[in-house]
């Protein structure tokens, strides 16, 4: 029982730390930054290395 209690306590502490991290993350600020940028860049595309396979084929012939 002591072991189970210890295990439960350590997991509870770990998950509390994760919840604290999630709550402290500046999600609101990040959303505002993204929204501000998306006003300039209205048709947004994810920033990938190559927008399509054709662009990759241009760089690396295969």
């Amino acid at each position: 029982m002591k072991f189970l209690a210890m295990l439960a306590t350590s997991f509870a502490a770990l998950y509390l730390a994760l919840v604290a991290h999630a709550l402290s993350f500046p999600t609101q600020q990040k959303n505002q930054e993204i929204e501000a940028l998306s006003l300039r860049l209205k048709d947004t595309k994810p920033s990938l290395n190559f927008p399509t396979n054709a662009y990759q084929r241009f760089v690396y012939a295969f």
Partner: protein
Amino acid sequence: MLSKNFVEYAILLLFKDRNDHLFSFLIFSFIVFILSAVLFISDSLQYDLTQSIKSQPEIVVENTRAGRAYQMHDGFIYDISQITGVSSVEGIVDGYHYFAQKRLWFHIIGDATLAKDEMIIGQGVQKAMAELYYEDEFNFFTEERMIRLKINKRAPKGTNIISNDAIFLHPNTARAVLGMEMDEYSKLYVSVPNPNEVGNVSLKIVEIYPSAKATTQEDAMSAVRHLYYYKGGIFMILYVIALVSFFILLKNQISLVYGEKKKEIAILRSLGFCIKDIIALKFIQNTVVSLSAYLLGVAVAYLYVFVFNAPYLRNIFLGNTLENSITFTPVVDLNLLFLIFLFGVIPFLAFVILPAWKIAISDMSEAVKS
């Protein structure tokens, strides 16, 4: 009802046989970790991209010729603005510039708020330029000439998911870099105030210009959902194959271990333990193992993705040619975690209980004699 002593005895036995349970604990933790990490990354990227699409115009028009993107001119703007329901049409300069020294593509976007000789760049672009000592200025080499521009500002790190490869320039400068004429546009943003008319207007645009593509906001949203959809299709098949293989491996390993422990089980039976007790004993031990492995796998996946920003795994989603130091927004889908629990922990217990029951019902007199 299980007594406290019984549970303590089960835990004591678990400690004694910890090496036998270590294999299943580690493998199960790893599977839960990989599964959770992939889903955390895809959910986080989807969330950020969905935020960015909110400001998207109702319809985006792009033209093609011979199967490739092709410029549009003022005639397109005039024709589309005449369609009933359209309030405004804006021509946009947008395209890709090949940075040959680093073999990279930069996304050039026209921004009328900037002066003609300045630009705003994304973090990935900045790093790529800095490697070739372009700190304050950058030279664009086009077919006709070299265009030197001041690096005015960097896009915030939080927007890396959409701005990492982006360079914002004044539309006329962007045209010069992309080799476009002054009255040419790459895209048109069409505003339609009435949401019920969006579908109709997009059909009319395609009717007037059959080689054009009209993308509505709804289409863009579903494209984002489709881009990082790792919960179905081929991925679901891969997850199921990985889990089933693990459970078969687990069943074989547990059968082997319990076969060796037959004498121990026989002694317990002779002390008065019934089949139900033996199964309960193994159930308690494996519940502790599987639950701990599940909780550890999910927690480590969270730390890996949202604290350390998923090194290596991030490159599968975003590529590694242009460095993307993205920060993942913590988005945790509890329904999904419950689903992983349901299809992970429950089969785990089922696959372990079966060999325990088989051993418990076998003839114990032979095991004691051996």
